[in-house]
C-alpha cells in the first residue's frame, strides 16, 4: 500500500483532503513532501493513525518529518498544534 492521503482538520468543516498520491511515484512524492512541509510550517501537528498487528490496538504516531511516516501508512492527519486553554 503506497497510496497515501493527507487530511487536515478544519474548524467548521471537519477534515479536508489536502493531497493524495502514490509514494512510489517520484512526482507524487515531491508534491506530498512539499505539502507536508507547508502544513508543519503553518504550525500544524501531524499524526499517523496506527494499528498494532499483534494486539489490534490502535494508537497514533506523531511525525515531525516526512521520512518518519511509516511506509504502510494510508493517511496523515494534520491538526492545529495544542496550546494551553
Amino acid at each position, binding site marked *: 500500500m503506497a497510496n497515501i492521503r493527507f*487530511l487536515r*482538520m*478544519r*474548524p*467548521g*468543516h*471537519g*477534515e479536508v483532503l489536502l493531497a493524495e498520491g502514490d509514494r512510489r511515484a517520484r512526482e507524487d512524492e515531491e508534491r506530498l513532501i512539499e505539502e507536508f512541509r507547508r502544513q508543519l510550517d*503553518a*504550525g500544524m*501537528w501531524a*499524526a499517523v*493513525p496506527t494499528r498494532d498487528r499483534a*494486539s*489490534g*490496538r*490502535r*494508537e*497514533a*504516531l*506523531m511525525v515531525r518529518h516526512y521520512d518518519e511516516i511509516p511506509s504502510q501508512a494510508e493517511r496523515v*492527519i494534520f*491538526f*492545529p*498544534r*495544542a*496550546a*494551553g*486553554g
Partner: protein
Amino acid sequence: MLLALLALLVLAAVLALPAIARGVGSARRRLAERRGERTGREVLDLPDPGRERRAEQRARELLRSCVNEEEWAMYRDLGFIRVWGAQARRPGAAGSARRSGVYAYLIYPQKPLVAFVPETRQLLSEYCVEFPELASSLSVSRLPDSDDVLAKWMALTGDERRLVASANMHLPGRQVDPGRVRRDIWRLAEWERQRRGGGQVASRG
C-alpha cells in the same frame, strides 16, 4: 430693492436645485451601498447549523476510523473516551497490570483532559488544552467536537509528554465539575461491567 433681492434669491435657488438634487441622490446611493455591504457581511457571518452538523458528522466518522472499537463505543455511549497513561500503554501492560497504580485520562469534547487513578478513582489534575486555528480568517475557530476529541486522542497516544507540556495544568475542579467526573468514572465502570457481561447499555443520545 427688497423685491429685487427676493427675485435674485429665488433665481439662485432654482439654479442650484439640480446640483442639490444630485448631491442628495449620490449621498442616498452611498448610504444604500454601505447598508448593502453591511447586510452582506452579516449574512456571511451568520452561523450555518447545517454546516456545523455536517462537519460534526464527518468528524465522528474520522474518529471512528482511528480509535479502538471499545473507545468508539465509549464515546458513542458515554460522551467521552478514556485513554490510559503511557505507563499502561506500554507493550505487554494489560489486564491487572493496567489497574494497579497507573493513571488514565478522560477526554471530553471542548473541555480539559482529566487525569485520574482508575484503581482509587482519585482525580489528579486537569490539563487545559485546545487546538486553535491561528492562521485563519474563519469566523469559526473551534474544531468540531469529535475532531477535538480525536486531536487529543492522537496527541495523547502519540506523544503524551508533548501534549501535557503544551497544556495548562490545574487542580481538579478548575473547569470540569469533579462531581461530574466522579459520576462519569462510575458510569464507565458500570458500562465496562455490562459490556463484559454482555448486557445492553443505553446509548447517550
